[in-house]
Every structure is written in structure tokens, then in C-alpha cells.
């Protein structure tokens, strides 16, 4: 078995048993990163990663993550390592500090080997909005890996790394996880510090893990959660994340929203999800039909709140203190217009304009204000649902991976990729996507969502289902 086939957990065991070293593991993965057929990496941290691996190998007491390599979405600030958020406006930008979650993982013994491709400023569902060209799906390189964390998902599926970090605002971890056939977790809002995550929509953004097993995802999250004095919205974490062991789902009540199993969902996706729900029952769980009356307004709500927040969050990119600056001009307004006009791609500009409009005097109440009110109703819908169920199940994405270019001309069809994931994001709840089968040879993801802080429960349920489904996360055609 190649070193790159190992899960993180297996790698840690192998290192502990002396069968391999961090340096060997990092080297093997760097090999695959540097022969990148999927355009997954925007920066490779070769020398620093190898040095760190040797350092960890020399430690008398290994840190818990033992020197296992990891890839980081380029939306996370990494000191001295180029960080662009997939945008031209941050071309060549080397941050002066490291994001808290990355620093915590490094302290726990993870070795950062590179930064992964993404939709510019995390705006997109296909990775095609990257200023550096799209990442490709290892299951079919004519198809998108999903987005916005497309590079992080594709890299894990292609075994360039055993695990990686992404960020999820409306589905940016779960949807690419589904399209690449891996596990992706969006934790409870506030579970992981956002300090150092280049903000898209502050009230929705969360950092989370990608991995090829539920246990690996739990292991990674374990070292990241908890309050950070640098992020006022981060939370004290009640109970430590534990690695899931459950094999049965006895007594577990799984809520199913019929609307999300019907129209607008591809038949192949529907069938794979149905099959997974049947497994729930065979493992001892019960299916409970539930309703989220306001969930259908989720997409519209999201596309007011997220652009509104992004219009302010992205205003700092003016080329004055850092980043790419347009050719000098004597006029301040012209400087802003040129720098931002040249630096941002079309989707980013579209959302900045949408958000600016939604916050404008005279429109605020009808758009942003109204969206916030609907968001409150959606939060209440979930609270009511979780009085009756333990976990909510639905497809993660209405479709399998679509072809490159298929939706770029029609933003609305692209936005619909996140129709199943967005309501959960608006409510700030934890959810994850696990692969539940194939449709025409392409992976289908099942989304599970729970009440706030229910990560351990979600991991247990996902772990039991994962074992029962027995999905093989190796894309055919990707060499071992």
C-alpha cells in the first residue's frame, strides 16, 4: 500500500510503529502535489514542510497529529506562504500572520504542504471563479470538483493529501466533498476560530475539515475547535470531539424533508440518498418526515445577506497596504476603481454590487432587513424540527459533478447547487457530507445536519452509515 493511500489515522499509527516517518509521508505527498493533474495547488510549501517534518521526527514525544501532511484552502492566512483567496487582487501576497485554526493544527503536529485552489474569495460552487484556473474533479477531469473549496476536496480525493481544510459559507465544504466523493464537515458557527480566514460573509463563514473517512475528519476537527481570544464569535467548546465508534443507529430519529428528496434533485442523486436512508432503517434508526416551512426562502435570503456582508468585507482590498495595485494614478477614486476593477473577477463584482444595493439607503429594510427576519424564521424552523428528530438528512447537492463551463453563463443555476446546504448555514448548525454511492460513475453526497454542538452525534451517525455503505473513495483512473 502506498503511503498516499493511508488515511491520516493509519499514517499516525504507522509512524508510531516506526514503519514510516513524517518526512517520508510529506515527501510522498509532495510528489503527488508537484505532479498536479487537477490544478489543486496555488502554492507549495516544500522546503518548510520537509524541515518541519524532520523536526517532528526528531521529537522525543510526538504531537498528536504526528507530522501528517495537510493542505490548506487559500482563503486561510498563512505567514510567509502566499495566500491569494483565488483572487488576482492578492496575487503574490505573503501574509504577516497565520490563521488561528492553522496554527492550532501545526501545534498539534500537522504539516502544511500547500495552499489549495478555490473560487475567488470563496464565491462559487465549481472552482471556476478562481483567477488561477479551475481545479478539476479526479473522478472525471472534464467536470468541476465543486466549490468554493474545490482544490481542497479534489486534493483529498486525488490522494495528494490525506486531509485538508476548507471553508463553508453556504455549502463550500459540503458540496465539493459530495462532488469529489469524500467527507466534508461544516462545524457549528463559532466552533472554529475565523481569525485568519479571509472573510466572505462573516456571519456564515466556518472553517472545517475534508478527509476520506469520518474518523479522520473528527480527528482534524478535534484539534481546531474552541474559543479564540482573537475571534469574538468563537465559542467555548462544551465537550471534546471524540473519534466515532458507533456501528448501529438504534433509537436515532432521522428527519427527512420530502421537498429536498423530490423535484429539482437529479434521479441518480435521489436514488443514492434513498438507498442510504434505507440503511438508516436497517441499522435501527427511524425516518421521520419533517417540514421546514421557510427553508424554500433560504437561497434568496442567503443571496442578500452574504453579498451584503461581502460588500463590506472586500472593501479593504484597495491595493494601498498590500496586494496588487493598478498602475499609478493621481486621482484617489480612479485608483480605487482601477485596482478593484482589475483585481476582482466578475462573480465577485456581481456580489459586491448586489450587497451594496441591498444595504443602500431606502432599500436596506426591504432587502437586508427582510432577509435577516427570514433568517430568524429559518432558525426557528430548525429548532422546532430538532425537538422531534436527532439529525436531518438530505442530498448535499442536487446533482453530481457537472461539466466545466456548464453553468458559468447562468449564475442562478450555479447558485442552485447550494439549495440543500444553505438553510443549514443560515441557522449556523453543524452538518457534514458523506459519500453515499455513485450515479453514472460520479459520487453522490448525503448531508446530515444536527443542532448546535451536536458534532459528536453527527460523527457517530455518519460513521455507522459510512461503514454500512462501504463507499470506495478512490476515483478510477487516479494512479495509486
Amino acid at each position, binding site marked *: 500500500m502506498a503511503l498516499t493511500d493511508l488515511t491520516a489515522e493509519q499514517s499516525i499509527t504507522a509512524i508510531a510503529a516506526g514503519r514510516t516517518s513524517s518526512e517520508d509521508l510529506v515527501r510522498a505527498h509532495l510528489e503527488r502535489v508537484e505532479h498536479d493533474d487537477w490544478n489543486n495547488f496555488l502554492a507549495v510549501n516544500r522546503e518548510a514542510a520537509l524541515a518541519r517534518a524532520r523536526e517532528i521526527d526528531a521529537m522525543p514525544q510526538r504531537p498528536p497529529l504526528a507530522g501528517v501532511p495537510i493542505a490548506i484552502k487559500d482563503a486561510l492566512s498563512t505567514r510567509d506562504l502566499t495566500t491569494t483567496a483565488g483572487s488576482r487582487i492578492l496575487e503574490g501576497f505573503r501574509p504577516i500572520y497565520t490563521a488561528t485554526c492553522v496554527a492550532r493544527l501545526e501545534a498539534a503536529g500537522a504539516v502544511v504542504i500547500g495552499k489549495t485552489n478555490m473560487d475567488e474569495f470563496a464565491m462559487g460552487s465549481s472552482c471556476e471563479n478562481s483567477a488561477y484556473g479551475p481545479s478539476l474533479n479526479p473522478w472525471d477531469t472534464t467536470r468541476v470538483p465543486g466549490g468554493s473549496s474545490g482544490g481542497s476536496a479534489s486534493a483529498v480525493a486525488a490522494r495528494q493529501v490525506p486531509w485538508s481544510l476548507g471553508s463553508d459559507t453556504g455549502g463550500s465544504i459540503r458540496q465539493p466533498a459530495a462532488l469529489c466523493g469524500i467527507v466534508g464537515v461544516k462545524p457549528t458557527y463559532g466552533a472554529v476560530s475565523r481569525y485568519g480566514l479571509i472573510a466572505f460573509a462573516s456571519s456564515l463563514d466556518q472553517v472545517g475539515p475534508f478527509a476520506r473517512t469520518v474518523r479522520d475528519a473528527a480527528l482534524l476537527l478535534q484539534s481546531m475547535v474552541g474559543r479564540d481570544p482573537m475571534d469574538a464569535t468563537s465559542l467555548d467548546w462544551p465537550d471534546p470531539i471524540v473519534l466515532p465508534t458507533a456501528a448501529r443507529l438504534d433509537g436515532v430519529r432521522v428527519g427527512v424533508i420530502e421537498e429536498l428528496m423530490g423535484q429539482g434533485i437529479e434521479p441518480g442523486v435521489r436514488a443514492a440518498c434513498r438507498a442510504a436512508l434505507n440503511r438508516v432503517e436497517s441499522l435501527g434508526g427511524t425516518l421521520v418526515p419533517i417540514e421546514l416551512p421557510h427553508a424554500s426562502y433560504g437561497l434568496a435570503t442567503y443571496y442578500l445577506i452574504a453579498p451584503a456582508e461581502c460588500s463590506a468585507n472586500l472593501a*479593504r482590498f484597495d491595493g494601498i497596504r498590500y496586494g496588487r495595485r493598478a498602475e499609478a494614478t493621481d486621482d484617489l477614486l480612479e485608483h480605487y476603481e482601477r485596482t478593484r476593477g482589475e483585481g476582482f473577477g466578475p462573480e465577485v463584482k456581481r456580489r459586491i454590487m448586489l450587497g451594496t444595493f441591498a444595504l443602500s439607503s431606502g432599500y436596506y429594510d426591504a432587502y437586508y432587513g427582510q432577509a435577516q427576519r427570514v433568517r430568524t424564521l429559518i432558525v426557528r424552523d430548525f429548532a422546532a424540527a430538532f425537538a422531534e428528530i436527532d439529525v436531518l438528512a438530505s442530498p448535499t447537492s442536487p446533482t453530481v459533478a457537472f461539466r466545466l463551463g456548464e453553468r458559468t453563463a447562468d449564475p442562478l443555476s450555479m447558485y442552485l447547487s447550494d439549495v440543500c446546504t444553505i438553510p443549514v448555514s443560515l441557522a449556523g448548525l453543524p452538518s457534514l457530507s458523506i459519500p453515499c454511492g455513485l450515479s453514472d460513475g460520479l459520487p453522490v453526497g448525503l448531508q446530515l445536519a444536527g443542532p448546535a454542538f451536536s458534532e459528536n452525534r453527527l460523527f457517530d451517525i455518519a460513521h455507522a452509515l459510512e461503514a454500512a455503505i462501504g463507499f470506495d473513495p478512490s476515483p478510477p483512473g487516479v494512479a495509486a
Partner: protein
Amino acid sequence: MSPDAWEVVIGIEIHAQLLTRTKMFCGCALSFGDPPNTHTCPVCLAHPGALPVVNREAIRLAIVAGHALGCEIAECSVFARKNYFYPDLPKAYQISQYDQPICGPGCFRYLTEDGEKTLGITRAHLEEDAAKLLHLGGEGRRANAEGSVVDFNRGGTPLLEIVTEPELHTGPDAASFLKQLRQTLVHLGITDGNMEQGSMRADANISVRPVGATGLGTKTELKNMNSFTYLERGIAAEVDRQIAILEAGGTITQETLHYEPGTGHITSLRSKEEAHDYRYFPEPDLEPVVPDRTWVEELRAALPELPIDRRERWIREYGLTFEDAEVLSEPVQLGDYFEQVAALAPPKSAANWVRGELRALLRDRGQEPWQSRVSPAALAEIITLVESREISMPSAKAVLGHVVEHGGQPREVVAALGLGAIQDEPALVAIVEQLLADNPVQAQQLREGKDKLIGFFVGQAMKATQGRADPARISELVRERAGAG
């Protein structure tokens, strides 16, 4: 119409930098005059991914200020983003408060010669200061500059913005209010109140209306008045300008104006049409501020005596004049010093000595009473010696001069320098008789009723005794011995 036909309506907005150790939303130290860009971090430089965290001390100071302004302290207040592009604002939004400020409506009491007045406070809210732009060349003015550079040291300094109701009607009244507001904030340690350095800044919203009218005229906002004098002058200039326009049949344009103290000129910064749409919305990176009510009440209970209450007490209990109280109350250390003297000596005399002789003597040395070698007890001792006629006034001044110079106990100084009043009655009589004998012409005139010659003889006697005689006793003896009325 004459100027008397118009009523002036003024509201003031004050920005006060708070005396916290660190900035509003990050851990960088507050500084003034340090090399540029030495107190910065990813947060106050708005690097990608950086997040604000609220400074708890700023919340505390805002609540203390709110109590002093008689404001309601909000159960829940919310930070909001105020969006606009400018190089001194690195995030391109200022974190401020909008529809839910930390301090709600209040009422500020201040003292004038006509007694206590009140001014409605609309609100007070927390926000962060912008960075400082420096314009190179072109005499430091933006319009003519060759280039501009940014110093982010100031960026992120906590500010309390206080907005008053439009209830002031004259420039002097506005200045009087602002002086006492400043005094109160400084007294409570909320701000250092340095208007020249810009740690406290005031803008005035000004309108005029015909006397008797109830609605408000169109207002203008006058900025950049960095002293009380400029505030008064600026208001006067703007009021004149508005009245002149209205009397010529014109209308006032709602705009933001800049007052140039040097020339007295008023220039337009921007009109209402050019006004920004700030697109305020709640700051998603920060939780609402919900201060613990017990804490809020503790802060109220711990409020020290306010300057106005102190001044009113001095007037009421010590019999000071409005002016005495005003002079002695500022700065607060002077008031403290005065109170310590007044505890040991008659307060009215204490007031005269502190604001008169003592400050005059110290002025040349560039010292303030509380920094000098004259302890409040020493000054009180000198006053007591004078009151009990143990030393004469000239001797007292000499003693004070000595203590200012060398320190020491006044009684010991009196003894050492032999400045004690001459108590020996026969000696005084001898001196007076000798003077009358030596100056027969004057003595005769005195007897004939030229009473002011008493002064002449007292003066001569003081000269003869090097000031150690009690002038009152000398005056009595002169009358007695000369046989004058």
C-alpha cells in the same frame, strides 16, 4: 431684520479619545507622537482575515461617561459598520454604533453665572478613530500636496461620540457647556481632553430661525474647532453668514463646513447631495454588548463627586463666588489642592491665596501648586498666622516665597527669618511717635483731617520694621498719638 430678530439653534457633537491602554478592537498600545506605524497589527491594518475584539475598558469608560451625562445605559447595544472608502480607514468601514448606541438619552448639568443649566444629550456611542493622513508638500494641505502618507498609529483608537440636542443658543453658552463637559470627562479619567492634539474634537450643528418660530431652520455642520475660543468664533462667523444669506432672501444649503481658525474663513467640505450613503449594518464580527446590570450599577455607585456638584458645594458651603469656583475647579488637581487647604484654614481666604498669591509666585517657575514645595498644610499655616495677626501680610508673602523656594514649615521660617509681627506695644508706640516727630508737616495735615495720610505713616512704619508691624495696629496708634479723629 436685525440680528435680534433671529434665534440661533446649536447642537454639539463631541468626539473624545478614551484613555484606554490599548486600541478599541486590538491589542496595540495607544500612543501620541511615536514614530509612524509602530503601533499596528493585522487587525488595525485590516489585513485579510483579521477580526475585531471589543476592548472591555472602553465599554467601562463609556458606561461611566453615560452615568455622568445622565444617560440611560442600553441593555443591549450593537456595533455597526459605517462604509466608505478613504485611505485613513483601512477596512473601508468604520466600526461604530448606529441605531443601538451604548448610551441613550440623557441630560448634562452645567453651571453658568445665572445658575445651573441643563442640556439634553441625544446619545453617546463607541467607535474607532481613523488613521492619520499626512500631506507632504503644499503646506500640508490636501489640495496642494505632492503626496499623502498614512500613519496607522492613531487608527483604531477608541472614541466616544457624544451628541447633544439642539438646545444651545449662543456661542459662549456652547463654549461654557463644552468646557464643563470636557472637565467632567477629564475628571472621570475618560479622556485627556487635549483639544489641540485632537484627543477631543467638537463639531457644531448650527441653524437660525426667526424669533418665535418653532420649526428648525436648515442646519450646517461646522467642523474643526479645536479650542473653546475657536468654537465661539466659528459659531459667530457661521451665524453671521446664515443671517446674511437669509436677510438677502437666500436659502441655507445643508452642508458640512470647515472653519479655518487662522483666517476665520468658512469653506464647504461637502453638500447634502454629495453626502455618503454609509450603508450601516450590524457588525457581524462582534456580539451585541450586553453589560451586566450589577456592574452597570456598581459603576454608577462608584462615580466620584462630579465637577458641577463640587463647584456648587464650594459656592454653597464655602461661600465662594461663581468665578472662584470656576477658576479653582480646573484642573482637578487644583481643586483637590484647594480643598485640602480649605480643610485647615478659612475657605474664602484659602481660595484667595491659592488662586492669587500662590499661583502668581509659581507661574514664573512653571509649577502648579500641587507640584510645588508648598504643601496644602503649609499654605493653611501661613493663612492661619495671618488671620491670627501673628505675621503681617507682607511677611506672609515673604514666608510663602521662602517656602516656594526652599520648602520648610512656615512657623519655623517666620522664626528663622525674624518675620514675626512686632508684638511689643511700647516699641510700636515709640516708632509711631518718632515718625510723627520726624514728619511734622504731614502730622499737622493729618490732624486737620487729611485722613489719607494715615497710609503714609503706615507705609513709613512698615519700612522702619521691614514689614513686621501689623498695619492695622499701626494705623490705630497713628490716629491715637497724632490726636486725629
